[in-house]
């Protein structure tokens, strides 16, 4: 059992008590809600005559269903409009802050909470969305939850949970050129598997992680769930504090020093005990691309699609399913795979640093004929910042469409969808069958820089050779 880790310390500080089942009742410091997983939870509250216990610790936005082209209300999709209205009414009825479209603060829930300084070290954070693990980048313990648990948090600001084990994943060394945080996470998932993290919180550390910016750490923690870990985190450090200072909801003036001291005290002890430790070398990581139907089916861009015989026995059935669905042959290089659609955005890679890097590569180049390429900022603030820097002009000149903030084609609950057998190069987080809105559509996950490379070449291309 782990001892002295940030996870242990934060868990203990937030423990309200032990429930009759033996589970822990854990206080939730920040509850983020959105239109998809909350309406049924509010309905359950009404059925039970309950109310929201800590509305001031609950923050709402709308992201999954928002159109990224025409955001005029009422939305053309009547179902989306109904969800939007339900969220507006629920927030109004319960006194919950709602960052609506046009407020300047709307965006993907995992983009807006960090950028407003709501996400802080040592907090527990819950949201009815599996990518809540993103907030772990700050040294918060953050979980995705289902709708019944959203109800529980609304009603009690707590969750009934069993404690997780802690695995330290240590990555050391400088990242090679063209290798990004996205490649690190795809490499980790490839190495440990999509179910390797079940039952664990992942603590990411080592010199590679220390050298990452907050936005890179968010990309890394974001995809913990794709590795099976419900929660992933990085110990807070000067990079964290520098990012937070001055943000709207970060501690101010006299509270700042006190806050930093508290955050510092929560870092995992030098002699902390972990349930498991994994060591990885940054030099082994290449620009990584998924070829299959799980995020664990990733390979270096210069590798070939694995042969069945080269895979562990337990991975063969899903590999066969993937060859058939993707219509890709084992032994074929992934490099040169033709691409129809290029998507840059999502809670994984829709932040300003992602867009800056994508624009740097797109600058002076052209999207290949026949490729649909578009960029969706993760939030209204990201959009505003990108436009202030002229990034949208770079993208448009290169042939990318420039859209408004939302989840867009990551999960296609909105008008942005693949069609038929289209194959996308996507900076998002899931390549599941049908994930991007067409039941037979195909997704290759990669870094935003690699998506730009694919857009320009019209096929999977190595960003290092551009």
């Amino acid at each position: 059992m782990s001892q002295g880790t940030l996870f242990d310390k934060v868990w203990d500080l937030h423990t309200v008590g032990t429930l009759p089942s033996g589970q822990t009742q854990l206080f939730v410091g920040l509850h983020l809600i959105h239109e998809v997983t909350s309406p049924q939870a509010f309905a359950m509250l009404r059925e039970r005559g309950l109310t929201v216990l800590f509305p001031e610790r609950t923050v709402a936005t709308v992201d999954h269903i928002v159109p990224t082209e025409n955001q005029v209300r009422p939305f053309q999709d009547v179902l989306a409009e109904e969800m939007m209205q339900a969220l507006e009414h629920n927030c109004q009825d319960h006194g919950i802050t709602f960052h609506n479209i046009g407020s300047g603060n709307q965006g993907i829930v995992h983009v807006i909470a960090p950028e407003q300084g709501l996400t802080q070290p040592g907090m527990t954070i819950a949201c009815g969305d599996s990518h809540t693990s993103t907030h772990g980048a700050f040294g918060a313990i953050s979980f995705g939850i289902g709708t019944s648990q959203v109800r529980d948090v609304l009603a009690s600001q707590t969750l009934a949970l069993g404690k997780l084990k802690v695995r330290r994943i240590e990555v050391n060394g400088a990242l090679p050129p063209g290798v990004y945080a996205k490649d690190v996470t795809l490499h980790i998932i490839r190495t440990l598997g999509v179910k390797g993290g079940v039952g664990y919180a992942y603590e990411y550390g080592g010199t590679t992680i220390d050298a990452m910016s907050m936005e890179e750490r968010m990309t890394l923690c974001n995809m913990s769930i794709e590795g099976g870990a419900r929660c992933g985190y990085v110990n807070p450090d000067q990079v964290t504090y520098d990012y937070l200072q001055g943000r709207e909801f970060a501690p101010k003036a006299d509270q700042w020093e006190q806050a930093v001291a508290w955050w510092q005290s929560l870092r995992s002890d030098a002699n902390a005990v972990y349930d498991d430790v994994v060591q990885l070398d940054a030099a082994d990581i290449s620009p990584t691309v998924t070829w299959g139907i799980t995020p664990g089916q990733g390979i270096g861009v210069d590798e070939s699609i694995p042969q069945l015989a080269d895979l562990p026995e337990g991975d063969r059935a899903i590999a066969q399913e993937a060859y058939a669905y993707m219509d890709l042959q084992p032994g074929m290089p992934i490099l040169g795979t033709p691409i129809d659609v290029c998507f840059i955005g999502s809670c994984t890679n829709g932040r300003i640093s992602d867009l800056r890097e994508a624009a740097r590569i797109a600058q002076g180049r052209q999207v290949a004929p026949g490729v649909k390429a578009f960029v969706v900022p993760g939030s209204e603030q990201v959009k505003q910042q990108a436009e202030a820097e002229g990034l949208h002009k770079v993208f448009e000149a290169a042939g990318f469409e420039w859209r408004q903030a939302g989840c867009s084609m990551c999960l296609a609950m909105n008008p942005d969808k693949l069609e038929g057998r289209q194959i996308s190069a996507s900076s998002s987080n899931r390549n599941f069958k049908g994930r991007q809105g067409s039941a037979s559509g195909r997704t290759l996950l990669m870094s935003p820089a690699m998506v730009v490379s694919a857009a320009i070449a019209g096929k999977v291309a190595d960003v290092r050779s551009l």
Partner: protein
Amino acid sequence: MTQVTQLSGRGLPLTGDDIDTDRIIPARFLRCVTFDGLGDQVFADDRAQTGGDHAFDQAQYQGAEILVVNRNFGCGSSREHAPQAIARWGIKALIGESFAEIFFGNCVAMGIPCVTATSEVVHKAQQWIQAHPQDALTLDLTTLTVQFGDQTLPVTLADGPQRMFLEGMWDACGQLVAQADAVRQTAAQLPYVTWSVAK
């Protein structure tokens, strides 16, 4: 609240690892404000693609109540719409080699037991159901066994969830709400509660 101690019903074998929640309920069906009607849409795309040959469509499995799956079932999105769709189709319990954590938590909160078993036990159960689709299996949460035909085999469920089902405490909401004073005390001791207020 209802105690869940033993469940008997016909089985439904759904083979394959890493069946994610996007497949269980594609995202377009999440455009809703209630869970009503999700039962008809469970595995919508997989079923359409197999032209009626999906386990959820096969005549012999209609009315089944115990779903038997393989590894990492329910991975991906946190959408409770996934277990809701499965439950509204008629499933009352799941047996699998392993479950993704959020999916498992959602099932507990809904009163749907998810128990794990070794690969060997799961394969035996799936094969037995295929040979005996009209016969019932019995899942016993007290003894942690599954019985089918003349076989009684072990299943696993962590102590906490087991107690929640056996004692009818799987819906934690009431217990959590009852501790509101203790919750306020815990909150008051956390420094950030005074530093950061959303409004």
